[in-house]
């Protein structure tokens, strides 16, 4: 990783059971994560 321009990443988040759903604002994209057990 190298330093570069600062850019904000804004995500809507939602917890659904063991899952975390991140949605980039202004898109229809959905990134789903599941908690490690």
């Amino acid at each position, binding site marked *: *990783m190298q*330093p570069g*321009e600062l*850019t904000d*990443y804004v995500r809507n988040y939602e917890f659904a059971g063991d899952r975390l759903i991140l949605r980039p604002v202004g898109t*229809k994209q*959905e990134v*789903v994560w599941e*908690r*490690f057990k």
Partner: protein
Amino acid sequence: MRGIMAVVLPAVLVVTSLRAVPAGAQSPPQGDIAKRFFGAWRYVGTSIDGKPRPGRGVEPKGIIYYDPSGAMAAQIAPDRRVPMAGPQPTAERPRRRSPTMSPISAPIRSTSARAPSRIIARRACSPASSPIMCATMNSRAIA
């Protein structure tokens, strides 16, 4: 009226629990919502408009991690089979520079008071260093 309160009241409660801090401050996030993020999460998948995101292969792998100090890191590796070129790089098959890994690490910066269900992270790495996600974020989104 009851319907409106059902929406507004939880939102107000969330806002008061977030206690957003200035971007430059470095105190660790301590709110109840922040604590829900802490720990490691396995990448399940990405969809766009309900359909799987193309370009990451059949079984991409990834992890995202939020720690109690406010730092986070994430990495997603697409499921791509890159054939071995051989023990030595050649002109036709030069050594590749970790083409499938895409790291992120950062501190969560703040949550939005206007939209309390948002997490804000600050990217601080070269666009060339990662094709998918690359960031250093201030994880204060959830103080």
